[in-house]
């Protein structure tokens, strides 16, 4: 297996404050990887750094191409879909328009068919297709955010705390769908989560991040089975 995303010596800064310190990791094509850690550890920053939404130094390579000199929108055009924290719903347009926006960089062909596929994955969105997206519930908006990201036909999908603020049952559904997308559409997934237990269930590989540094890495199953790691870093 080849690495789809390769990160070397990645530092990130907010103003004068350094938030990431020499991060190194890689994602294998077709894998599900999870980045775990406490609040403020730098998980969100890592995702933002990949998309060049914060000031960074170091190297991020996607499929062999360096990303650091590209703007966020150009990185997205390479096939990296980012589901941001807080979902980033376009509240003032309809659900269906949100899905169309996900595919805005693609040519028109196949968009209508992809929207229908999303309605199969997320039937609730079909019921709400003509509704203003801002009127959706939190869970529905999260579904919409994932569906919108998939409309890009991404090769890599970055998810920032998809479980945040959702009822446990909905979270379970969502992760089931994520697993299915990974298997069926061959989308590589990097998911940042505080809900470590759930993330480890679908992930192949896991990294634990603390104060901007990777402190642990391994197969998801091994990390889940290691009681010491669980107790000291993952809190369950």
């Amino acid at each position: 297996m080849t690495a789809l995303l390769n990160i070397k010596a990645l530092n990130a800064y907010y103003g004068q404050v350094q938030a990431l310190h020499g991060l190194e990791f890689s994602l294998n094509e077709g894998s599900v990887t999870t980045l775990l850690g406490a609040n403020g550890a730098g998980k969100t920053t890592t995702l933002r750094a990949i998309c060049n939404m914060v000031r960074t130094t170091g190297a991020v390579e996607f499929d062999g191409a360096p990303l650091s000199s590209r703007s966020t929108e150009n990185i997205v055009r390479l096939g990296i879909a980012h589901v941001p924290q807080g979902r980033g719903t376009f509240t003032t347009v309809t659900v269906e328009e949100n899905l169309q926006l996900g595919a805005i960089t693609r040519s028109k062909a196949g968009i209508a068919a992809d929207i229908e596929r999303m309605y199969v994955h997320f039937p609730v969105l079909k019921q709400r297709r003509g509704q203003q997206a801002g009127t959706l519930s939190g869970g529905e908006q999260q579904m919409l955010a994932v569906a919108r990201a998939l409309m890009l036909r991404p090769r890599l999908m970055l998810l920032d705390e998809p479980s945040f603020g959702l009822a446990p049952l909905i979270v379970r559904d969502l992760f089931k769908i994520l697993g299915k997308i990974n298997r069926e559409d061959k989308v590589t997934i990097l998911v940042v989560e505080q809900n470590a237990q759930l993330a480890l269930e679908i992930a192949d590989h896991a990294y634990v991040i603390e104060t901007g540094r990777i402190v642990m890495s391994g197969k998801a199953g091994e990390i889940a089975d290691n009681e010491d790691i669980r107790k000291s870093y993952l809190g369950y």
Partner: protein
Amino acid sequence: MDLFVNQILAGIATGAIYGCMALALVMIYQAIDNLNFAQGEMAMFSTFVSWQLMQWGLPYWGAFVITLVLSFVGGVVIERALFKPLAKAPILTNVAGFIALFSILNSSAGLIWDFTIKEYPTPFGSAPFLGSQLISTHQAGMIGVTVLLLIALYVFFRFTRIGLAMRAAASVPESARLVGINTSWMIALGWGMAAAIGSIAGMLIAPVVFLEPNMMGGVLIYGFAAAVLGGLNSPFGAVIGGFLVGIFENLAGTYIPGVGNELKLPIALALIVTVLVVKPAGLFGRPIVKRV
């Protein structure tokens, strides 16, 4: 009764211009959350350009179309050169930039074309419209062009992908970038469209107020009033606001004793302040929630 209908129709006609102006203001407000105080001067400058083209012998509609294109390009260039670098600056800096642009355009129009009042042609003629004494063909033309413009904009924003992208960029810029939209260029596009729409307003009102560097002062204030009344984030509301303000202006001028031509600007002022205080979101706008 005839007088009343007459005033309403005349109000709708001038209101059409206010609506165009308001539409231009809303376009930029949507893109950058800021009011372009130089919008009127941009429109005035465009109108002078069209006048110059006609002086050089171009037919009206030829000059009209070329002016539209030039204004669009001009709007984009102004944004790229002067306002893009100010995107992250405080509001005051942006307001100062608009004021500077206002000053430059007003003054250079005077320098190039001098400050004397010029006649400006109308393509619609000024005969009574359909034989009616109520409105002239030019007034009917103003209404017609505004309505066409509104329909065109509606189709553009509702049914084209670039229109959708512009709406998305205006509503949640960060998410827009995350789906691959170049938000910075969407803003430039908004400026270009605003400049073009403003030029239409200028070219339509010029036969009525005559062409001179200060011709848009009053129109801009009424455009502001219309935009505020309709809601600053609603293009549809802006045009309706324009019609309402136009009607209100004419009726107040006719039926409230003492309110002649000389009180028209104070009326616009009162209207702006009242709407901002009583219903800041306007009739058709969405309320804005501030994040602390």
